[in-house]
């Protein structure tokens, strides 16, 4: 089946292949393309924000429009750029790292992606339909419940649909890592990127339901006349803040932990040393995951929870600095005495350590509840979270893309262009955000569309905007790099970095079925164990046999499309009751597709062992 697809290489065939694929490698590429697309949109919004703030009392955009781009910048970057780009890496790498032929539920994997994409498209459709959400990415009630127009409704429905996709993806990775590990791949032999994926999936499982519930309550308040967050009707707007941050704080660890995983793969590979303190790294990851659930109120110190609550949440938050510190030192000790090779992936990883440490330091400062009354809602907070999210997550994604690009696309990204991207982006980043610490300390509030002249804020904001342009240049050079590498780059071997983990034991290009024979894992850094004993390949754990693979399906796409249509129905039924028709049609499509999936047996197909040598599934 896969061979016939490979022979028809017209555009339509490729499109159909990607619309129906359940192959984790292709879904990874889909996540990469759509996450990259939303990253560019979020970046454009960031540029608009910085241009507006380049000089005092600028009027590049109107106040209302500024609120929209500001809201959409945060929402897009977190939910539609960072999350999918991380899922791109997870999909591309995790099944290979554990020696599996696919994820546990390939159909659900595809469904998770299409739900995310249609949710993101629904959210961004608001730009063309009367205005985007404008209540901040946190959508605090009562601002969000009273915001006029349909912007916030698009936020609710868009995030609800893409959130369902994320939840599905998280569960899928949990089951995959529990059940699909190759023989010998015990938990304490899992590569650290797989470990962080595992912990992150558990965080998704426990944190996203809080967002789902919060969004449902908000949806009923806005669209169906309930009053959960309306004090006049006996509701309480603070409940939204609690629900949002019970989800929101674990969410930032959902973003950062996989980046930690990437660095824990890149640093040992290019220092030619095993990761220092592997066990400590694993337990630090798990501990960060657990503690992450008990600190949400540090976003709410100024709400008035009282000194007892504030103190306890302050101490709990500071406690997280301990496992994070353990990780920082372990990375440094991994480098110590290593045979270090500097390339683009390594540059991103090395620069991450000091950058993220700065973000961590301001994090501890913000955790001091009393001091937070000074920092709250100023640019100090903006500087802090950009240091951890850009300095941690975005650097991690860049490092991961440079590192795994040969695994995903068979070619190494151009080093010169990679270094130009790194230096422009790195310098631009610090130029943009370092000064914002001081702008915040001088009292510049976040989310305001103008500032006044001669208050000591002019130069700082100007410098910040220059930095943003440098980051944009870095991003554009990266895009050029992708195009240049794709068209001119040379195909490399399956193991271009002299890697340590299982994903480098596979030939290039990666076969459809990943492993011809499931490998036998004999230690941490499975491939390295074989290399030290003079072997070039993994020892197989099974004789050559027929390979069972899942069938492609268009149903995930149809299910997600149905919810997308129903989303519009929910949003507009408040204006005109006949829009309920869209709800029925959309839900009908989704439920119909689910019904078809349930009653039609789909047992997958086999690649026969006789055909394997003839190159089937390549």
């Amino acid at each position: 089946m896969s061979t016939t697809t490979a022979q028809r290489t017209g555009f339509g065939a490729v499109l159909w292949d990607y619309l129906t694929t359940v192959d984790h490698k292709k879904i990874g590429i889909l996540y990469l393309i759509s996450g990259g697309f939303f990253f560019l949109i979020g970046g454009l919004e960031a540029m608009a924000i910085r241009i507006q703030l380049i000089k005092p009392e600028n009027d590049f955009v109107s106040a209302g429009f500024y609120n929209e781009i500001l809201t959409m910048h945060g929402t897009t970057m977190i939910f539609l750029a960072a999350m999918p780009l991380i899922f791109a890496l997870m999909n591309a790498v995790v099944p290979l790292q554990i020696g599996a032929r696919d994820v546990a539920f390939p159909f659900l994997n595809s469904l998770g992606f299409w739900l995310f994409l249609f949710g993101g498209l629904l959210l961004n459709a608001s730009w063309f339909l009367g205005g985007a959400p404008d209540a901040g990415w946190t959508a605090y009630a009562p601002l969000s419940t009273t915001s006029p127009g349909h912007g916030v409704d698009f936020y609710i429905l868009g995030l609800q649909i893409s959130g369902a996709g994320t939840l599905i993806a998280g569960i899928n990775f949990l089951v995959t890592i529990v059940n699909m590990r190759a023989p010998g791949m015990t938990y304490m032999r899992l590569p650290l990127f797989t470990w962080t994926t595992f912990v992150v999936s558990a965080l998704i499982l426990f944190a996203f339901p809080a967002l789902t519930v919060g969004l449902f309550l908000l949806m009923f308040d806005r669209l169906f006349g309930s009053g959960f967050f309306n004090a006049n009707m006996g509701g309480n707007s603070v409940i939204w803040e609690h629900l949002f941050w019970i989800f929101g704080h674990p969410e930032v660890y959902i973003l950062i932990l996989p980046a930690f995983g990437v660095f824990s793969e890149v640093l040992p590979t290019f220092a030619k040393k095993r990761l220092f303190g592997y066990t400590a790294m694993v337990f630090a990851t798990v501990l960060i995951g657990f503690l992450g659930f008990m600190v949400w109120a540090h976003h709410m110190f100024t709400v008035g929870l009282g000194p007892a609550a504030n103190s306890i949440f302050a101490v709990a938050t500071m406690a997280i600095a301990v496992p994070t510190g353990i990780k920082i030192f372990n990375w440094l000790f991994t480098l110590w005495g290593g045979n270090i090779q500097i390339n683009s992936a390594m540059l991103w990883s090395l620069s991450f350590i000091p950058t993220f440490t700065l973000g961590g330091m301001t994090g501890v400062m913000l955790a001091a509840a009393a001091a937070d009354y000074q920092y709250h809602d100023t640019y100090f907070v903006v500087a802090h979270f950009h240091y951890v999210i850009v300095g941690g997550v975005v650097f991690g994604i860049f490092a991961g893309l440079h590192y795994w690009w040969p695994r995903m696309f068979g070619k190494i990204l151009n080093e010169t262009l990679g270094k130009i991207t790194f230096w422009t982006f790195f310098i631009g980043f610090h130029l943009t955000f370092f000064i914002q610490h001081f702008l915040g300390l001088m009292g510049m509030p976040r989310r305001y569309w103008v500032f006044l002249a001669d208050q000591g804020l002019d130069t700082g904001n100007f410098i910040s905007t220059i930095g943003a342009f440098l980051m944009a240049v870095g991003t554009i050079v990266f895009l050029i790099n992708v195009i240049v590498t794709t068209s001119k780059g040379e195909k490399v071997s399956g193991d271009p970095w002299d890697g340590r983990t299982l994903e480098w034991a596979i030939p290039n290009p990666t076969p459809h079925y990943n492993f011809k024979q499931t490998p036998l894992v004999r230690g941490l850094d499975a491939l390295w164990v074989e290399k030290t004993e003079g072997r070039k390949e993994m020892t197989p754990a099974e004789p050559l046999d027929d390979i069972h693979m899942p069938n492609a399906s268009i149903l995930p796409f149809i299910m997600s499309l149905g919810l997308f249509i129903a989303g519009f129905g929910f949003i507009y039924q408040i204006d005109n009751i006949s829009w309920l028709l869209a709800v029925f049609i959309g839900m009908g499509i989704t439920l119909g597709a689910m019904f078809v999936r349930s009653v039609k047996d789909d047992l997958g197909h086999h690649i026969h062992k006789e055909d394997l040598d003839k190159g089937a599934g390549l």
Partner: protein
Amino acid sequence: MAENTNSVQNELDYHKKKKKEEMKQQVITFALMIVFTIIAFTMVAAGLDKLFVIPIIVVLAIVQVIFQLYYFMHMSHKGHELPAIMMYGGISVAFLTILTFLVLIWW
């Protein structure tokens, strides 16, 4: 060879015995669960004090959930360690969250 068949036979016996044991436990738990339900309903029907009835019903419910998980859904069997960890992890996080609300935020 003879020894081999013998050990297979032994194993079969062992499994049979174990199955029987399990069946017995399931019947007992089933009976207990019915008794619990009857107790709960009679307490409400008898119109006892709410402060007394509600905690007891909650405790009975928790016991029934545990019965359900361990005796009917076989959580005590091998290979269920990880789901157990996930469930207890989730329960403890949810419990801590609710406790925080009760004693810290809304007291």
